[in-house]
């Protein structure tokens, strides 16, 4: 699971959960896979991303020094930051770990790179 995917995952579907975001991420095993850097795409993607989850992911991936805690303005002009965001969001692949619902503590395991977000019938 790439950290760009993490940015879109929520536990909102659990009965009684109000926001369910951002999920608490734990990484036990990860891989780094190089991929082509497309600054235009990163820039276009930014309005769709939640910066708190971008920064949260950077902290867990031990890349917090690369990513500012608050989203800077004029990010498009900062090629170096775009490159760092690309690395964080598209080159780190979480193979084993877990996601935790911030409200209920429900754990969603990540195995073989696939997060299991499936809920039981009595949870929805």
């Amino acid at each position, binding site marked *: 699971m790439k950290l760009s995917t993490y940015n*879109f995952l929520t536990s909102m579907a659990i009965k009684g959960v109000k926001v369910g975001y951002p999920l608490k991420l734990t990484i036990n095993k990860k891989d780094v896979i190089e991929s082509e850097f497309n600054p235009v795409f990163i820039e*276009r993607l930014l309005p769709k991303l*939640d910066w708190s989850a971008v920064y949260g992911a950077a902290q867990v991936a031990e890349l917090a020094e690369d990513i500012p805690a608050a989203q800077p303005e004029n990010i498009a002009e900062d090629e170096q930051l775009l490159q760092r965001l690309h690395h964080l969001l598209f080159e780190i692949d979480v193979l084993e770990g877990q996601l935790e619902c911030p409200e209920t503590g429900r754990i969603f395991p990540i195995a073989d790179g696939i997060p299991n977000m499936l809920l039981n019938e009595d949870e929805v």
Partner: protein
Amino acid sequence: METPHTEHLSSVDYEHVYEPAEDSFLLLDALESDLKFLDKLQPRLCVEIGSGSGIIITALAKHFAHTSICLATDINPRACNATKRTASRNGARLDSVRCNLAAALRRRSVDLLLFNPPYVVTSDEELHCQTLMSDQAANSATQRNLVYSWAGGRDGRRVIDILLEQLEDILSPSGVLYLLLLRENKPDEIIKQLANLKFKAVKYMERRIPGEYLYILKVTRDPD
């Protein structure tokens, strides 16, 4: 768009995961023929619900390489796994997420949504019976997953209707859905239902295959 390689999937995989068939190829053909529209749309997040073998989302991930995030969901863990293998065999990058429909995704985030639903008309009794029977079988869970890949309940609409009700919460403001339907699913009724939900739906492509008549519905938000 190239049709992805699938020779890495074997008959053993297809005991648990829906094998690409005419319906899958119709959905691929529809996307291919609408590429001009899709390239203009520039979807930032593409999602296929119930990706099965993964050929459709893999073809899309190849086309939109480095310009889009592609995600595949399925309730069947073997399908999630097969989808990842298909992507990797074809040099595409995407993520599989095991969940029901798009339940794990942030609201109104999906720019391009694909769904080849379980559309076969089955009586609720038959569906119950099928899942019950497979419960007694040794490999019950995976058998049940395979039943869920095709059994659609009354009018084949069991899952389709649930998705339609959730569509408002799934699609982004400029989002589009390509939905595969069977004539028995009553596409005209679905188009009306979508109009009531403030979506514009058109029969984008149709095809007669032995024993079935298939449609691709293209659904966008109604600007009016």
